[in-house]
């Protein structure tokens, strides 16, 4: 079982769209995928048309294995299950601080090892105790970046945090998201950045109405526009991601 986090300190960068589409593509290939919506806002849970509710809340999930298993819901897509968001996740930092271990999340995921091939963690923005747990529990972090100065600044903050905590920087895989090729700044950053950060993924996701429509359709982009430029870009990104995960 591989665990992948889709993470950025900054919000509104296309995190949830990426997480949902990557999970859908992995499952479509025959991988057994569990999607954990860790964001109390529950956007992914909404996309999957599932109630954002976990019996016993976050405390229950971290205290008993059966609570976790009971909370898993099958989505409308084969091989893809969801652990929904819950409003109590806003207190996850507090729960995890009580656990006093930065590998609590890793422990919670352990019993799922034989049941799933891939766990995707859709993380809330910010840097917190939960993020630290996510970093320890994940085999890799996909970081969506909008090619803007502000976005690159937050990426630097993430790198600094990893350096300070002596975490493995090679597991951070940034890629560009919401790219608007009409903007010179976007084009320049997309060209220059991979030279400075060689771990950058090759495929970039264009700014797309179809991705925005995911909220309205409440489904992955492939299920309603499988040939739109964004879906094709996600196909490429998934192929690259799959290779990277296999080589871990």
């Amino acid at each position, binding site marked *: 079982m591989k665990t992948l986090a889709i993470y950025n300190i900054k919000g509104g960068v296309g995190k949830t769209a990426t997480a949902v589409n990557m999970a859908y593509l992995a499952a*479509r*290939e*025959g991988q057994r995928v569990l999607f954990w919506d860790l964001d109390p806002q529950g956007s992914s849970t909404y996309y999957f*048309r599932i109630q954002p509710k976990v019996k016993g809340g976050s405390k229950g999930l971290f205290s008993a294995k059966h609570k976790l298993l009971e909370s898993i*819901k099958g989505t*409308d897509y*084969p091989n893809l299950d969801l652990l929904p968001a819950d409003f109590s996740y806003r207190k996850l930092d507090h729960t995890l601080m009580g656990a006093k271990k930065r590998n609590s999340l890793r422990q919670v995921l352990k019993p799922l090892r034989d*049941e799933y091939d891939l766990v995707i963690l859709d993380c809330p923005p910010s840097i917190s105790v939960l993020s630290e747990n996510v970093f320890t529990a994940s085999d890799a972090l996909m970081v969506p970046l909008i090619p803007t100065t502000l976005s690159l600044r937050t990426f630097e903050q993430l790198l600094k945090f990893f350096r300070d905590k002596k975490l493995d920087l090679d597991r951070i895989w940034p890629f560009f998201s919401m790219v608007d090729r009409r903007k010179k700044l976007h084009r320049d950053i997309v060209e220059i950045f991979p030279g400075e950060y060689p771990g950058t993924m090759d495929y970039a996701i264009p700014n797309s109405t179809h991705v925005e429509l995911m909220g309205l359709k*409440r489904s992955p982009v492939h299920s309603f526009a499988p040939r739109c430029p964004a879906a094709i870009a996600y196909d490429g990104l998934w192929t690259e991601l799959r290779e990277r995960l296999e080589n871990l």
Partner: protein
Amino acid sequence: MRYLLDHDIDLAAFAQDLCKKRSLTALSPLNIQRQFMDSFDWRLYKANVALELELAPGHRKLLWKLTDNSSPDLVFPVPRAKLGFAADLREGPLKDRLAPLLEMRKLIAQLTITTHRQPLCLRDQEGKTLLTLNLEHHQLQDADGQKVEPLPPCLTVEAVRGYDNAFAVCIDYLENKLQLSPSDTSLFQDGLVRLGRYAGDYSSKVKLVLEPSLPAAETTRTILRTLYTTMLRNESGTIQDIDSEFLHDFRVAGRRTRSALSQIKNVLPQTEVDIFKSEFAWLGQITGPTRDMDVYLLDFEKYRNLLPELLKPALDPLKTFLTRHQRSEQQKMVRALRSKRYRDLKKNYTAFLEQETPDSEPPAKAQQPTKKTADQRIWKTYCRLVEEGRAIHPESPAEDLHELRKTGKKLRYLMEFFQSLYPAEDIKALIKSLKLLQENLGNFQDLEVQTHALQGFANQMQQEKIGSVDTFLAMGALCLHLNEQQQQARTEFAERFAAFDDDINRDAFQQLFHKTSRSSMKSKG
């Protein structure tokens, strides 16, 4: 969950009624061709897996189900190329699952059913599916895809994880309100039964339940009939070259037949036994070259991996050569399997196996109880094996080891034929100890043959202008590796034989097959 419905049920009206009463949404109906896939020898079924291919316009699914329902079904995309060998699949989760189970065997459709399916969905106010009901009409096709006959219509319920309540309410309605009873068989099982078959109805292993007191002649004919059935079941796959194992099993059944004819002595009429021994030997000869080519092709990756990276690509022309010759040998073999000689062999042998009346002058041991014959034959062959094995020394020629291997094979076949006459655990343990010895002898002999064959191939390839200097260099390097492995097998022989010929094993053989006699097999030295 699956519920059988009445043959004459009006599914459309039933669907409409369900939708109205249970707030279900009817989705577009589908006409699906369903193929239940497995290898000829049921490797997936034996691993608790049912693989089902569903094809309909806009609906292409490959379902991986565990027959014990220990985990949810998996759905794979249907590969573009026709499903067959695992090796031909793209790298990915399907190949990862199939390859270790199928190995060299090809997927075939064990059963084909055409289903008219009306899916009905239960959704919540968010539009999320909580469960799906499928109302289905089925038409069964036979092995040739020709004859079509209906199977009982059914209703299946697909639960969705985490929505147990919706499922429980639905089941309660179907079972208590509509008085439907859940079926304890699957559609696949029902279809097979209708064709007079069952899952796992082929195995290359000899599985016989023999009666110890029956006359040996009768038992021997039973053994021969079983082997002949196995041979015939593999005949069509051998001729069509579906995969290499049809020919392999066809040949093994023939070899076992030859062994039974010559090893179970003085039981069947000698004149006919001699004729069939020679005819089955002919069958072994005409099928041998194709099998050899199959084996080299099956082992090709192993050969490649013995070479340093630089030389690996240079070996590819050998594969081209082997593939080409496999094809021509296959054609030659098919011609022989369509010859009058082969047809006569089958006709005469069938008649021979059907003889029931005792001959006027029955062979000396025809009426002897089966168990006594089994004891005598196994013990005698065992003693011969031990004697031949003890005579082997580090300088013995390869032929001596080959002869020893052949004796070992005869002993193993005898033990397998008569297995049911002895306590299962005891005989299994002895067969296992023999297998370990045979493995070593088999390795030694195969490596001997392969080294010589490679030299022969190199000559032929030069004549046929296949391969470059690098190819022959790679083949030379390969010969060296094989030779080294052969030397290693020879070194290991002494240890393996000593383990087989130890006091415990010897006592066990004696206890099982030679209990009554005073004479015993002496320990070495």
